């Protein structure tokens, strides 16, 4: 039997030491990432927390830092988010339903699948260029909320399709078979059984996709979300600004006061995103607790 003091045992000690060192190394890399997140949030809080008050949320941006607020940016974000959701969710879910329930394994459908996977990895600024050429100039929508929403729709569509497909795929085949056995058509099965069962999972992923879209800056810069907007959008053709662009604008100015404003705006944006994500997680929990089959 090799003991801890025999040659093989001494070797074992060295290996165990190496393992401990390696474990510490990996733990350190993870700790560094978490530490940096804390530093980021800490510096944000320090620079911006004091500026977040009711006046900040209800004032328009201004040349004077003390009077500036995010009212127009919040309104613009809200408008763009709602419009994007209205356009992308039906389109994305319909495409996912087709690809999962209806599509035969043809060459065209394989191309569509690969295409969607590629689109999900395209840099967001390229979508901005497409939106600029197609919606702002091509159709002539100009620098409007609608153009911005359509651009973001193209951006989130691949993500929504992929996520919806996974949710639909998770519905057990026995549910479909039972429905068909009772004489239902394919659409009846999808509409009355598959979609309701897949809905919670889809909702979670859709909310997460939309929360990503809210943080997008580059595509909307290209589509022309202006940086000085002192009004709330009142129609689809309105010019607009969104929170990330307002943050970008304030952060790019040299004065310290505007940097503090940017930090405050970031905190508001993060709060918005956090609540959306928390809502999505809550939905996921509820879905996992009570299965409908």
């Amino acid at each position, binding site marked *: 039997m090799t003991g801890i003091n025999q040659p093989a045992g001494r070797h074992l000690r060295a*290996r165990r030491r*190496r393992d401990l060192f*390696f*474990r510490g*190394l*990996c*733990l*350190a*890399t*993870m700790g*560094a*990432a*978490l530490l*940096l*997140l804390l530093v*980021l949030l800490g*510096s944000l809080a320090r*620079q911006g927390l004091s500026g977040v008050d009711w006046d900040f949320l209800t004032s328009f941006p201004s040349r004077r830092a003390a009077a500036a607020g995010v009212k127009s940016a919040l309104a613009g974000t809200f408008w763009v988010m709602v419009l994007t959701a209205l356009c992308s969710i039906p*389109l994305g879910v*319909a*495409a996912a*339903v*087709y*690809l999962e329930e*209806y599509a035969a394994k043809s060459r065209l459908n394989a*191309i*569509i699948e690969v*295409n969607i996977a*590629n689109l999900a*990895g395209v*840099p967001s*600024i*390229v979508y*901005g*260029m497409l939106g600029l050429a*197609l919606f702002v*100039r091509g159709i002539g929508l100009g620098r409007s909320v609608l153009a911005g929403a359509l651009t973001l729709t193209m951006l989130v*569509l691949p993500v929504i*399709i992929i996520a919806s497909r996974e949710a639909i795929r998770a519905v057990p085949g026995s549910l479909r078979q039972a429905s*068909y056995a009772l004489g239902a*058509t394919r*659409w009846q099965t999808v509409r009355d059984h598959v979609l309701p069962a897949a809905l919670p999972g889809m909702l979670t992923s859709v909310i*997460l996709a939309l*929360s*990503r879209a809210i*943080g997008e*800056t*580059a595509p909307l*810069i*290209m589509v022309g979300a202006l940086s000085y907007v002192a009004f709330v959008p009142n129609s689809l053709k309105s010019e607009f600004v969104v929170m*990330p662009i307002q*943050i*970008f604008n304030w*952060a*790019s100015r040299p004065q310290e006061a505007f940097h503090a404003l940017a*930090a405050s705006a*970031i905190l508001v*944006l*993060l709060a918005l995103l956090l609540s959306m*994500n928390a809502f999505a997680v809550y939905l996921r929990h509820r879905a996992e607790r009570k299965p409908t089959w």
Partner: protein
Amino acid sequence: MNNEAVVSSTEPAGALGAQRLRHELKERLIKALLALSALVSVLITLGIVAVLLVEGLSFFTEVSPWEFLTGSRWAPLLEPRSYGVLPLVCGTLLVTLGASLIAIPFGVGTAIYLSEYASRRSRTLIKPVLEILAGIPTVVYGYFALTTVTPALQQLLPATQVFNAASAAIVMGIMILPLVASLCDDAFRAVPQSLRQGAFALGATPMEVATRVVLPAALSGVLASFVLAVSRAIGETMVVAMAAGSTPKLTLNPLESIQTMTGYIVQVSLGDTPAGTTEFRTIFAVGTLLFASTLALNLLAHRILRRFREVYE
């Protein structure tokens, strides 16, 4: 699988037959509408290619592709004009390299800890934190680079300029780290426990299991995650637009101000270059290069995943 409720052999005549016909037409119509929705995704791709092609081609009638791809001075908006894209590519690669140097080691280390060492409770605490890191908008990272990382760097290395590649690279590394970590973690978790347990049974330490069994088995996923991280870094816009600068130059010094491809596109969009001019079309030429390189990297990652994937059982 044909589950349409259409009777093939016996055709009931009269009202029932008419109802079946209506159902069949409705089913066909719905299927067509759904198929159209799926085709929209193809239209988007075609749209991207069309826009880049049309504007790019009209740009390349004015400027030769050779001059574009090999020229070393990028000054499309100043006199004398010069359209060599290499400074932008160099800036992009500099920032990407720096970001990868941070994201890859730290991401793999985090993934190894999460999958091989961490208890289940630690995992449930840490995974959400990584998701939070991944969900922070890029403009927030840009702000962090500008207001916290750059001053800190300037204190450490006084030669650091206000806009510099290093801040952007560091922050971008932090931003991409969760992507690498979660992809590698997924790859490690896909390795069956039986392989690990066999190694442990032979007396291996967790480090030996991780480095000699799990990592080689999950290699395709790990390599694919690296490629995807690089692709993400190349396409990232806001961090570099805010922190890296707008002075295109060929340099390897990360403490200097540079400009990346994405940073240039944003700069022109924010300016007042009139649309339809050669100067404005430069963004489409640069955009084509950007799109082509990220597409190539994404396809490569997909290839790696498929080609080298281990079949376990």
